[in-house]
């Protein structure tokens, strides 16, 4: 622990960090200038000569088969080049990921599934053509309702690289025998990633060579997937993802846009851009699956947990299994002699869920940290102290020692900065006119993950260096932080290092996901640069591959931790909740760029604020999709929702991670935010709300009954 270093002067252009090297410096993001001048190009913005535009036709039934597609009216429109229909992709190899099996067969697994694709000279004509396509269906009964007792559910064998179920001791008996018991069920609705840049691909064939400009968190996977589907050697495929307008998991693996664009380009012999319309994204790019989470906490009167049972019910589609592994957090957080952490997933006729920022952890910690707050209430113990009291020596799920764990320090530091001491624990007593005011706390956790990567470092005759890795900069500042890692390993000033990312000609690399991008790419960059520095004779270009190291089993449980503190005001007239203050303190290894790290922490906290208060989606039982499909009805937080948010961190010195000593920072900011806000709403109102989001309808109804 090296003390608080988080609050870098925000206008500091520094290129030197706390240790005197580039690492940790608040370096300005390298592509910033391009982004503020409009020069940065995103996937749909490559206007290749002769480029055409595609528009998808979404399935209008929730389950069934396409029985006919009449394209005559569409093809009759001037400027229409083609309409692709089911079967046009039948010649492609079967994808491993069923969501990419578009236009292969007539089956409709869920509403919104792409059943045809119009291609035209202009986007306007493509849209008109898509609308003119007449599709007939044979429909079957469908089910999209997730209930705790929904039939067909099963316990998955594996979630998040671990077992679907972890059970220690006799949790049922221990809970039944506990002095103090909390038995509660929390619900999180479906949520949508909605990166500001919709999923888009521009595809172009030259003979049997395919180039795609695509909005992806991992170009290497895109290339491998396209090679498999189109039966091409990878070297004939080029994937460019220079700038990516956010993804938050929804661009982690290839989505239908890239397959459809490549198909359409091959079909028409023209470069084709498919920019998926915003309203259609929720059904095709994945969503955070809804969860119903039963939490049972048993404790002694001393506040020590004697039982922790976390049972999650969630849905997946019939297209592929995805489990929102919300119970995993209970294997990490608190010491308990009896533990049950289990999942039950129900396949429904729903659009396929997928990763959304901190999948599993975000909804799981909402439920767990809310339940812990309820336990603190039941015990009459301060919620910070209750957490400290249940701090485990080893990871409860695995029994492994932690490589580093400073959640208590985060709680203490956060409490100090927030002014937690002296807080009146009584709920519902702080009135300011029509407002009820309250504060809340929650812990955060996110696993350290790392994957093998390759990278090269080249020494140029002019004394500069170039590091190359097919990383994706989705807004994290990857270019910048990789240059810092390189400069540090080379022992040269940051200005002398250039980074190349976002192109499949570069050394293959894993995706920007699971908060493991920088850890994974950076390890390979560090290794290449360190070798180049130590053995210049190996140069001018050194290639590194961390396979075997980065993926080696660790004897340690490795996680980032944190703590959120929130203050809210609840309007008793309208039920509107407004955030007054939000503070996050994190312990995530060594922070490699103070400026971009702070942006990621606070940005994820904003998304957590949305999860808590504004973001709401529904599966329409009759139609099988989400009525809240656009940005007017799905409420992403706006400027006015977001107060001054502070994020800070405690530097950790953890030698069991990677050469940089860094943990991931992209996701932990969203973990726990919703619980801190929900706990603050309870403190304000005295009412425990157990379903997100905390919108006026829910708040007001109960304020009037119970307030």
């Amino acid at each position, binding site marked *: 622990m090296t003390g608080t270093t988080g609050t870098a002067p925000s206008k500091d252009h520094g290129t030197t960090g706390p240790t005197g090297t580039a690492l940790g410096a608040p370096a300005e993001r390298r592509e910033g200038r391009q982004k503020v001048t409009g020069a940065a190009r995103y996937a749909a913005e490559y206007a290749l000569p002769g480029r055409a535009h595609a528009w998808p036709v*979404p399935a*209008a039934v929730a389950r069934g088969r396409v029985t006919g597609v009449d394209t005559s009216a569409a093809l009759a*429109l001037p400027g229409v080049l083609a309409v692709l229909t089911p079967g046009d992709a039948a010649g492609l190899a079967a994808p491993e990921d069923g969501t990419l099996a578009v236009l292969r067969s007539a089956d409709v697994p869920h509403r919104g599934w792409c059943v045809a694709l119009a291609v035209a000279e202009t986007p*306007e004509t493509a*849209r*008109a053509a898509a*609308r003119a396509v007449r599709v007939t269906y044979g429909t079957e009964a469908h089910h999209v309702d997730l209930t705790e007792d929904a039939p067909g559910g099963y316990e998955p064998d594996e979630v998040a690289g671990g077992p679907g179920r972890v059970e220690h001791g006799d949790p049922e008996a221990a809970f039944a025998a506990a002095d103090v018991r909390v038995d509660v069920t929390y619900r999180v609705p479906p949520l949508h990633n909605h990166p500001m840049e919709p999923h888009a691909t521009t595809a172009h064939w030259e003979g049997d060579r395919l180039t795609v400009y695509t909005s992806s968190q991992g170009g290497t996977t895109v290339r491998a997937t396209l090679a498999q589907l189109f039966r091409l050697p990878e070297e004939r495929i080029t994937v460019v993802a220079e700038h990516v307008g956010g993804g938050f998991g929804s661009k982690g693996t290839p989505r239908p846009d890239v397959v459809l664009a490549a198909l359409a380009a091959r079909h028409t012999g023209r470069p084709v851009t498919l920019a998926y319309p915003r309203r259609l994204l929720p059904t095709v790019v994945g969503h955070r699956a809804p969860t119903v989470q039963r939490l049972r906490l048993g404790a002694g009167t001393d506040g020590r947990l004697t039982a922790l049972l976390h049972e999650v019910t969630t849905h997946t589609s019939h297209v592929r299994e995805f489990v929102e592994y919300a119970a995993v957090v209970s294997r990490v957080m608190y010491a308990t002699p009896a533990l049950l952490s289990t999942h039950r997933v129900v396949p429904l006729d729903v659009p396929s869920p997928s990763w959304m920022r901190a999948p599993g952890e975000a909804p799981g910690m909402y439920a767990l940290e809310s339940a812990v707050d309820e336990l603190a209430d039941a015990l009459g113990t301060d919620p910070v102290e209750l957490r400290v009291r249940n701090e485990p020596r080893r990871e409860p799920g695995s029994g492994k020692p932690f490589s580093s764990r400073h959640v208590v320090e985060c709680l203490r530091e956060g409490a100090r900065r927030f002014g937690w001491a002296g807080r009146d624990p009584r709920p519902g007593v702080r009135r300011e006119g*029509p407002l009820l005011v309250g504060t809340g706390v929650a812990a955060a956790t996110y696993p350290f993950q790392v994957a093998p990567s390759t990278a090269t470092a080249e020494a140029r005759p002019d004394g500069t260096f170039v590091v190359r890795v097919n990383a994706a900069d989705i807004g994290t500042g990857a270019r910048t932080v990789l240059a810092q890692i390189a400069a540090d390993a080379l022992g040269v000033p940051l200005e002398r290092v250039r980074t190349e990312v976002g192109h499949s000609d570069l050394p293959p690399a894993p995706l920007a996901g699971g908060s493991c991008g920088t850890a994974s790419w950076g390890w390979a960059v560090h290794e290449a640069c360190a070798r180049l520095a130590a053995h210049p004779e190996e140069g001018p270009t050194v290639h590194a591959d961390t396979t075997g190291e980065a993926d080696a089993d660790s004897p340690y449980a490795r996680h980032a931790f944190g703590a959120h503190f929130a203050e809210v005001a609840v309007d008793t*007239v*309208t*039920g*509107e909740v*407004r955030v007054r203050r939000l503070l996050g303190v994190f312990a995530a290894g060594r922070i490699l760029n103070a400026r971009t790290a702070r942006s990621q922490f606070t940005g994820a906290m904003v998304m957590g604020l949305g999860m808590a*208060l*504004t973001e*709401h989606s*529904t599966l*329409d*039982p*009759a*139609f099988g999709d989400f*009525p*809240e*499909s*656009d940005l*007017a*009805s799905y*409420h992403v*937080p*706006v*400027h*006015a*929702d977001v107060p001054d948010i502070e994020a800070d961190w405690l530097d950790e010195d953890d030698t069991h991670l990677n050469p940089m000593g860094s943990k991931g920072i992209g996701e932990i900011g969203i973990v726990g935010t919703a619980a801190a806000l929900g706990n603050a709403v309870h403190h304000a109102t005295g009412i425990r709300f157990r379903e997100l989001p905390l*919108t*006026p*309808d*829910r708040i*007001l*109804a109960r304020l*009037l009954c119970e307030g």
Partner: protein
Amino acid sequence: MNGFGYLRPDSVQEAAEAYAAHPGARYLAGGTNLVDLLKLGVERPGTLIDIGRLPLDTVQELPDGGLRVGATVRNSDLAADPRVRDRYPALSQALLSGASAQLRNVATTGGNLLQRTRCPYFQDLDKPCNKRDPGSGCGARDGVHRDHAVLGHSPQCIATHPSDMAVALAALDAQVELYSTDGTRRLPVADFYRLPGEHPDRDTWIRPGELITGVRLPAATAGVPSAYRKARDRASYAFALASVAVVLRVEDGVVDQVGLAFGGLAHRPWRARHTELALLGAPATPAAFEGAVALELAHAEPLRDNAYKVPLARGLALDVLNRLAPAPAAA
């Protein structure tokens, strides 16, 4: 959307004549809702008649002390107009609580009045909607309808009207000026809108080809205390879950003049006539307000998931009434 013709007439008369020559045409002003609906395929006109540059873009004093607002005055300009802020504060507040600054910079007075519901079933061509496609059914009634109507809905339609501005205009006794080749007429804003009934496809009593040329704000409500309040899912840039506009004058502790309209509750801005009748001449006390508002909301028929709107509307109305009432009454 398929292609369409585009006409830009130079006068109101030319515009109406152009419509007569192109049945099924649509007038285009700011376009913030119409272009949205064109893209969705909800609107499919053969011709657009651009009235955005007609000389209807000024706010004029009327001889009696009222104001005449041209149909193409932009929402942001109307909200900022010193005369509106001074004499009709509820209107300025309602405008500023709607949409975003970018949209308000383009959206016009007439277009705001004529905007369509944001019901998601209305906007999705693959779902039934009696408003968009009469006889196809209503997807919202048994579907997702937490945002929908609690007053005046019909088995055919439970949509709400999305305008904030129209709610304030209804409470302020404003009138819509309409022009057609048959002549001109005026309708109170409160009566301009229809309830869905059997014909939810018709939002208003406007006739085909009729053009809104302006809105008249009467002298009778000029300078009378008024205010607008709205509740929504996020702090800005969201449609109302419920809203209220109140115009209230109290003399010697007695309600001398009152106009109250709800937004977000019905197919039209809901003028609360029962409340107004009960309050006129009554003491301006919290208890009187409460009783009068309850009279109106007793007519609410909430659906499965929107019962919260009734107490929400009640709370908003009482808050604004008590705020506008002189201090002794609100004490």
